[in-house]
């Protein structure tokens, strides 16, 4: 029997975009730990809270959603969810929230530590579940909660009344934070942050748009990892530089005929929904093994925060996924599918996310019809491993592949 020879992988280049982005994400946690040790106040911040506010004020914040995803990806999802359930939280509640509430109680997790908060920053443009989750944290830890309510927009465009409402809240939040932390707002610093955030956003949009090349110069699962930096650090210079680097690497890959998708790209799909972090390898391998590259997701569009001034920023935060009506949400995805030559749509019906999944069947039908592509869904969860069946996933992906095959033959 031949001895298995393991391929020697070259040591990763520390200057590569991947390593730079990984470092930025890791530093966010270690910086927060250090800040706490120095006696600085640390906040917990929801993912679509306007990062420009803490960044301009020079505050140190952590992102519980990212932490929960990290804990789940490293195998701690079930343990932490069970911990929250033992306190009385229903297993119907978002698994990120359950992990976070468990962490608040345990104050430590081997998979990913971060300091407990002195205040919480909440924006509900991702979901209203976020409000309840942060209310419970604020109440239990007896800390202030700063809440920017960005209502679900039932119309295609954001109304002036809604922008007025958001803008007033943004200033209110800034003034509350000035009082809590003693830090001062600076218009000049804001303009710098806006410029950096705009640069990072543009680079992100450009990088993700290289999926228009066939084959794609990247594996779409890369985006699920890299987006963490766009969520948390897009106002930081090093993030903008890393995103520029990512874009140039993808362009180079295209010119060199290489890709981070290390297989023959036979099919191109869009993946809808948050990743199944506890099953990331399984969901990735299930596609790659069949030559299916997930070339785009709504995240490609979601973090393109390009705006011209403070008021326009308020509009931008009301136009994030999960905050827009079905027609607007559909059209953004249709554009991604068409621009990136997508041949099928794989929908994650995410048990943790009622808002993301609550009108997805109708929206994905409309996308399928508009783009003339097959749509297949599977049941899963962003962080609770108990809500995913590998066998179902495999069957559904196989089904999608067979329809895409038939469509190719018919062309």
């Amino acid at each position: 029997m031949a001895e298995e020879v393991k391929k020697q992988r070259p040591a990763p280049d520390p200057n590569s975009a991947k390593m730079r982005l990984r470092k930025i994400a890791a530093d966010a946690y270690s910086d927060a730990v250090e800040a706490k040790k120095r006696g600085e106040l640390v906040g917990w911040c929801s993912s679509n809270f306007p990062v420009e506010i803490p960044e301009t004020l020079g505050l140190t914040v952590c992102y519980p959603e990212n932490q929960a995803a990290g804990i789940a990806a490293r195998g701690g999802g079930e343990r932490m969810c069970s911990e929250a359930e033992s306190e009385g939280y229903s297993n119907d509640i978002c698994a990120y929230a359950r992990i976070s509430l468990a962490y608040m109680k345990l104050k430590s997790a081997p998979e990913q530590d971060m300091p407990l908060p002195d205040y919480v920053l909440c924006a509900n443009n991702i979901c209203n579940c976020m409000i309840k989750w942060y209310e419970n944290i604020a109440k239990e830890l007896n800390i202030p909660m700063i809440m920017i309510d960005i209502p679900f927009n039932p119309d295609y465009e954001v109304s002036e009344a809604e922008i007025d409402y958001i803008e007033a809240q943004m200033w209110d939040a800034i003034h509350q934070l000035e009082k809590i932390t003693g830090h001062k707002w600076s218009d000049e610093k804001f303009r710098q942050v806006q410029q950096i955030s705009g640069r990072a956003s543009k680079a992100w949009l450009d990088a993700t748009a290289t999926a228009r090349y066939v084959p794609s110069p990247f594996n779409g699962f890369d985006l699920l990892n890299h987006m963490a930096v766009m969520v948390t650090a897009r106002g930081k210079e090093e993030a903008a530089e890393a995103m520029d680097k990512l874009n140039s690497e993808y362009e180079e890959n295209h010119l060199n005929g290489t890709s981070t998708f290390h297989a023959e790209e036979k099919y191109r799909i869009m993946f809808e929904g948050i990743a199944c972090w506890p099953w990331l390898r399984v969901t990735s391998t299930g596609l790659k093994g069949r030559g299916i590259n997930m070339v785009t997701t709504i995240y490609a569009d979601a973090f393109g925060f390009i705006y011209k001034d403070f008021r326009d920023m308020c509009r931008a935060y009301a136009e994030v996924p999960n905050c827009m009506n079905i027609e607007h949400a559909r059209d953004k995805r249709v554009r991604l599918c068409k621009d990136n030559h997508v041949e099928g749509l794989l929908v994650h019906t995410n048990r943790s996310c009622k808002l993301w999944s609550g009108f997805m069947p109708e929206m994905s039908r409309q996308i399928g019809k508009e783009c003339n592509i097959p749509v297949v869904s599977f049941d899963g969860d962003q962080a609770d491993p108990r809500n995913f069946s590998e066998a179902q996933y495999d069957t559904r992906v196989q089904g999608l592949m067979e329809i895409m095959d038939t469509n190719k033959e018919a062309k």
Partner: protein
Amino acid sequence: MTSKEIFAKLHEVAFNPKQQLNQYLADGKKVVLVTYYTPNEIIHSMGLVPMGVWGADIQLNQSKKYFPAFICSIMQSILELGINGTYKGASALVVPSLCDSLKCIGQNWKYAVKDIPFIPMSYPQNRKPDYGKRFTKAGYERVISDLEAITGAHFSDDNLRVSNHIYNEHNAVMREFAEVASEYEVSAQERSDVFKSAWFMLPEEHTTLVKELIERLKEGPKDSRKVRVLVSGILADAPQLLELFEKYGIKVAFDDVCDESRQYKKDVPETIQNPMDGLVEKFCSMDDDTLLYDADKKRVDYIVTEAQKHHAEGVIVLMTKFCDPEEFDYVPIKRACEKAGLHQVNIEVDRQMVNYEQAATQLEAFSELF
């Protein structure tokens, strides 16, 4: 009428909303479907009949094409009833976006029930500052504009002033009923029927009946049951469940139920000259609700205080399955009850519930604690 006759009439209405809808339509009125915190005063002031939709205990079929299984069955069954034609003849559906499932139903409704237009009502969560009030007003103005376009009805401040007063009077009567029902002999089903029927009748009609009922009840015997509870949840209307309350001698001393007392806590301040500003003030002054931003969790204290005020020694949480706002609030409620020495139990309920054995076991054990 005797109290039994009034209860029977309200029971009939509570259990036959379709008949009410058809009667209003036959009378030449236009009906607008409403949900959690819709501006019913506005709808009423435009000569339209607001009728509540809270779903029904039915099998879900077509709604499954739109909703995944883990959306609450209230939303699922509202959509099912919309698709199967139960609401046929209604002019519009008004839905506020106060929870994630409420956000979703409107988006699905547009494609699933094309003959009844969806009107969104965007409320602010930051409702106390002036900017929250301005946003509430903008939301109401949008509802008016949509209603005018859809129904041809017209809005006027003068008519709203009248409707505000009618609703305030109804609120006061419903609050008084809750107190009287706490003190006098009223079954859980009868109590539920009074609150439920309010959703399917014009408030002025309902006020007249409930006022008379209150007088009759005060002539009757006081309730002597030992097991007095506060019931909390979104709904508490399943007859099989309410039967269990009677079976185990459980008296509903007060409620924090969304389609019951939560609706009647705040009035429109009629001292505010502009009736629209008054209506805005009503919403913005609302608190102690799972759907309304509450960083201090005052709702939890409210539940404990109301339980104690009504001499209830226990709290029954009727947890609507998949209602995550309520599920988040349960843990602090449980802890606060324990701290206050109140018994508490969490019973999961669902619109598709057919087996009440687990609920029966829980309620029987709970009643034995008193």
